């Protein structure tokens, strides 16, 4: 067991707790960087998919995990980001290096616009309100067919930055590295927000709106900012999903994706960056795991592969139920428990993480 002796306020401000923690993340980073040399095309594609979903996960995490505002409409902002990115390139002829940040900005502005009518809503009402956005976006894409090509959909052009091609198929390793860099930048920005006054204002709004207000936090504006940052990150992820799939239409970002995004961060662990990554691993790799399991069982029984429709959704639902019942803090919560067990070995106790009943809250005003 190690004890950290803090000698400066900066220990609590820095990105990493100490050198030993920084070393672990450095090791992880090196593994991620050299991954294209060891993985075949298929698994490298899957890894890219995981990273993209992790960005999307961080997007919705900022709103749901950090600010405590439920959203069932985030697929709409994947769509906004994806369409904005492609249209900026095709219609305005902007290069990727400009269209990509701009599509995040557009998705962010769309989020702020959505926040204005919805910040007064709470809990289930907010969930339903945002759910409507997700449904509306589907129709909106069809209605705006002259721009979006409706149900036929659009194709993403290949990425070229300063003459270097990052094509999703021809140069998958470069595309992977590009996604990795974007992921790292988002993680850095996310961490920076969390360790600054804004991140604390988010947590304040999440845990008690009344006292956030009494502390001088403008609750409505803070929620709007949270919506904006969240949807901006989601928009970036949407653009990358567009590149990953190469074609997309109104069905690509449907309501199921919205729900999946929310489930993803719950399974991963609400309120942590780790949670977004763990959830992304589950959501991106589950279809592959199912396919492999199906082949395995097919081989065992001697028959061909068995196809069970809806298996993926059913398994996903089952995993969610198991987590809500046995590990509400998600995969990250389990990870922290296992880590603590080894850190304190042999002094870890079973009830160390038992949650205390919370005390009565004052009646909410207004």
């Amino acid at each position, binding site marked *: 067991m190690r004890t950290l002796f803090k000698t400066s306020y900066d220990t609590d401000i820095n990105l990493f707790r100490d050198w030993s923690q920084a070393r672990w993340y450095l090791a992880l980073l090196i593994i991620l960087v050299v991954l294209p040399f060891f993985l075949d095309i298929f698994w490298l594609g899957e890894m890219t998919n995981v990273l993209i979903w992790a960005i999307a996960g961080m997007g919705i995490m900022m709103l749901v995990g950090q600010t405590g505002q439920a959203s069932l409409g985030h697929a709409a902002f994947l769509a906004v980001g994806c369409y904005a990115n492609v249209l900026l390139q095709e219609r305005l002829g902007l290069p990727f290096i400009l269209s990509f940040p701009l599509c995040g900005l557009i998705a962010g502005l769309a989020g702020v616009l959505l926040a204005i009518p919805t910040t007064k809503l709470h809990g289930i009402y907010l969930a339903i309100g945002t759910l409507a956005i997700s449904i509306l976006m589907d129709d909106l894409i069809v209605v705006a067919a002259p721009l979006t090509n409706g149900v036929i959909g659009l194709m993403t052009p290949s990425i070229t930055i300063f003459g270097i091609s990052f094509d999703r198929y021809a140069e998958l390793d470069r595309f992977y590295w590009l996604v990795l860099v974007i992921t790292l930048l988002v993680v850095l920005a996310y961490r*920076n927000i969390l360790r600054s*006054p804004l991140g604390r204002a988010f947590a304040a709004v999440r845990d*008690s709106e*009344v006292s956030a207000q009494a502390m*001088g936090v403008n609750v409505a504006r803070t929620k709007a900012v949270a919506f904006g940052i969240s949807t901006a990150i989601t928009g970036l992820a949407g653009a990358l999903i567009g590149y990953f799939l190469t074609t997309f239409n109104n069905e690509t970002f449907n309501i199921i994706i919205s729900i999946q995004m929310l489930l993803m961060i719950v399974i991963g662990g609400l309120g942590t960056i780790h949670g977004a990554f763990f959830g992304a691993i589950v959501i991106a790799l589950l279809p592959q795991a199912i396919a492999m399991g199906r082949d395995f069982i097919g081989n065992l029984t001697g028959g061909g592969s068995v196809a069970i429709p809806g298996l993926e959704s059913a398994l996903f639902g089952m995993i969610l139920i198991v987590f809500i019942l046995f590990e509400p803090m998600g995969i990250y919560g389990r990870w922290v428990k296992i880590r603590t067990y080894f850190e304190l070995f042999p002094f870890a106790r079973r009830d160390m993480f038992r*949650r205390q009943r*919370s005390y009565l*809250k004052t009646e909410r005003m207004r």
Partner: protein
Amino acid sequence: MSLLEVENVTLRFGGVVAVNKVSFSVEEGEVFALVGPNGAGKSTLFNLISRFYDPVEGDIRFQGKSILDRPSHEMARLGIARTFQNIELFEQATVLQNLLVGRHRHRQSRLWNEVLFTPFVRNEERRHREAVEKVIDFLDLQVYRDKYIAGLPYGVRKVVEMGRALAIEPKLLLLDEPASGLSVEETQDVAFWVEDIKKEMGVTVIMVEHDMHLVSAVSDRVLALADGKALALGTPHEVQNHPKVIEAYIGVADPAEKVVA
């Protein structure tokens, strides 16, 4: 000029008159207590001063200016801090983070430099931390600095909430039952702290409290309320022996029987 003037304030909830034409003023540097039986309108007055409720008539002035045209989240910037009767802390955050939220009104950084975490933001963070550490030292919260609120006992939470209000560096501190649910020793601590807040920090305190020992020990003036109406205003001793106050608490005013408090 008084620091806070409450003038003829009335608030109704449907047919219930929660606060009925209450007027008082609080001078700078004093400890002012609000007492009264349950439902007298004490906490409602707090919610009026912190702008959670709008009065139907009357005016509330802070440093000579009416605050009725300002939203509640601006009260902290004006220098009005408060605690809550039932504790409203940020449960999924550490004590340190809770206190740092109190520094929100001193936030100088903007979204763009926070995202980049520029050296300016880092310096600001250090400055906030220093201010918060002073509060931690003042309230002896060092042991709990990195503990999550969700795991803390009630008494500590009460103190943390007071600390969070102090981190605002207020001119006026509203304490809503700071000693309710505390042990005798903890209540004594609160008495000393209120004394120090007034004398060392120069902060004016308005306090709602049922514990008359605490009230008479620390407060300069007391306002007794019952059924939304002001009954008596004066020193703790005067108010405790005021016939109307005795009537409100005991029910009958018999001059032959002196109530010993």
